[in-house]
């Protein structure tokens, strides 16, 4: 049995189709990532799976329980960390943890082994008000609170948004160790670079799933030659490159532009055609998740 099973789940808010017939499954103990920009429907999917919303059509089950009919059973066995910081800023670290333990009818001590690796890092500040913690510490506290009742499935909605790079990396290490303890984790993020830390990822955009695979296999599905190009005038390069025959796509990618081409594209000929641009260079690159995302998004 899968930890999460979703079948053509749809949710509409007025005229906005937030989620359009989404289907996928997450296996037990899997660390599954939902990758997509704002407005992709990630939060809506989380709220449906945590039974905060009711779908317009389709079905889904979490830990074997239907999200519509058995929603109360789901609520006691999942941990949920919403996108916004959702603890009480006027309560101390300790009070927050105790309150969430009581909320689920457990004692904070009983789950200490599970929470300890995370909570230990913020324990020196246990008398501090949660609102006065730094972004990374808030997030650790929120994770501790979401774990306090030993959930079997953990839902983390954009847990690393607004957190510094070091804390983000630490956070993913924590998720990996939780996964070792058998907890299924569904996590969403707008950062493509975090996708590689997941077992499998689903790329989503505007309420649709564009594709699902392991981070390594998903980039292999990029089936066209890809080059990085640069010139002193990047803007001129962008519009000029798009006019060259054999170039399928050209889009800004960090400090360079990525060039998706037809098969049989000749880089040296490309350089010759654009010789009016200074410092022009082109080199083949390995596609990243972002490249496949852009490719599928335009499909």
């Amino acid at each position, binding site marked *: 049995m899968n930890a999460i099973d979703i079948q053509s789940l749809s949710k509409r808010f007025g005229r906005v189709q937030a989620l359009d017939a989404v289907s996928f499954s997450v296996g037990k103990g899997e660390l599954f990532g939902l990758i997509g920009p704002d407005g992709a429907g990630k939060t809506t999917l989380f709220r449906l799976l945590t039974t905060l919303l009711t779908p317009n059509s389709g079905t889904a089950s979490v830990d074997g329980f239907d999200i519509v009919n058995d929603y109360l059973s789901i*609520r006691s066995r999942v941990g*949920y960390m919403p996108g916004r910081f*959702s603890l009480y*800023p006027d*309560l101390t670290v300790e*009070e927050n943890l105790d309150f969430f333990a009581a909320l689920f*009818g457990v004692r904070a001590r009983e789950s200490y082994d599970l929470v300890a690796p995370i909570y230990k890092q913020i324990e020196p500040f246990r008398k501090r008000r949660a609102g006065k913690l730094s972004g990374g510490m808030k997030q650790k506290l929120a994770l501790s609170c979401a774990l306090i009742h030993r959930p079997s499935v953990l839902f983390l909605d954009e847990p690393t948004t607004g957190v510094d790079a070091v804390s983000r990396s630490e956070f993913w290490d924590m998720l990996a160790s939780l996964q070792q303890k058998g907890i299924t984790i569904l996590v969403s993020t707008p950062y493509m670079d975090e996708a590689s830390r997941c077992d499998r990822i689903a790329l989503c955009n505007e309420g649709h799933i564009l594709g699902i695979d392991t981070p390594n296999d998903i980039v292999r599905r990029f089936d066209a030659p890809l080059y990085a190009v640069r010139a002193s005038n990047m803007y001129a390069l962008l519009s000029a490159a798009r006019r060259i025959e054999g170039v399928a796509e050209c889009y800004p990618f960090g400090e360079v532009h990525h060039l998706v081409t037809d098969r049989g594209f000749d880089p040296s000929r490309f350089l010759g055609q654009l010789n009016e641009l200074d410092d022009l260079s082109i080199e083949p690159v390995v596609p990243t998740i972002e490249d496949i995302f852009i490719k599928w998004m335009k499909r």
Partner: protein
Amino acid sequence: MKNNFLSFVKKESLHILRDRRTMLIVVLIPIVLMVLFGFAISTEVNDIKVAAVAPDRTDGVRDAVERLARNDYFTFCGYTDNRSIDALLRSGKTDAVVVFAADFDRRMQSAASGLPSSPAIQLILDASNVNTAGAATAYLQGVLLGAESQQSLFETRMLFNPQMKSAFNFVPGIMGLIFILVCAMMTSVSIVREKEVGTMEVLLVSPVRPFKIIFAKMIPYFAISCCVLILILLLARYLLGVPMSGGVAGIFSLSLLYLVLSLSLGLLVSTIARTQVAALLISAMVMMMPILMLSGMLFPIENLPKFFQTVSLLVPTRWYIDAVRKMMIQGASVVEVWQDCVILFCMTALVLGVSLKKFNDKLE
């Protein structure tokens, strides 16, 4: 599971205790309102400035003026003449002018002996404040007739509030207002805050049922309101001297019912409002205005147009104020105001029922 209910109450109390400013306001508002309405804002008439016009200062005239000057309610500003009356009143130097007839003594005598006669005294008042002018007329007549009034047709006795102290009238009104302020506004804001901050999402994705969340929220506010209630009753009794002749126990228990009603109203508001500002506005505009205007707190309900009289039937504060007035001032017992109690009880049940039903355990 009982355990988590107590933790909820504890958490809610911590929120309130840590928010010192709000706490202070909750305690200060009743005190300020009581003192303000009890002393500063009053409809009683004090210190009426009176001048007299007397062409012939006979013994009778002097006697009457003497009585005026000695009375606490009046300040005698001296004699004047016919032509300055208008200017004096206009400038506000006097509030009233007493004009004695030239043959005052003779006219009084013929009146006393039952003979037909023309008026002996003319009263000219500044009626720009209707209340003051009305009260001043009554006082002046009483004082000026004095000894000569044995033949008066009426004997008037003011029961329950013989000195017509306005504070007595205002205390029940203030109570009706404050509890809506404290209970309804604070509960609604605190529930909506959880929605706005996002903690409600986390609370809902837990095995705790919504009604538990709600009751846990109500308890600390109920406790605070009880303290405020005791404070108000103490202030009313010992600072303003309100008689409470109907028994404190009755007033207290009816007020507890009203507290629950106010809390339920707050809950109802929280199911409608999505932001704290909206909750505040709804509590302030939608609830405060009818309470101020239609509850009989400021204006007698009998003076309202028919339409508003009908609307006022739906304002719970109207019934509460009515009952508390009867109990505080007239000395009625709870049994005698059973109608008000039953109406309040039904309203409480209705509001609580509707808001519990409306309180969703989902986000939409």
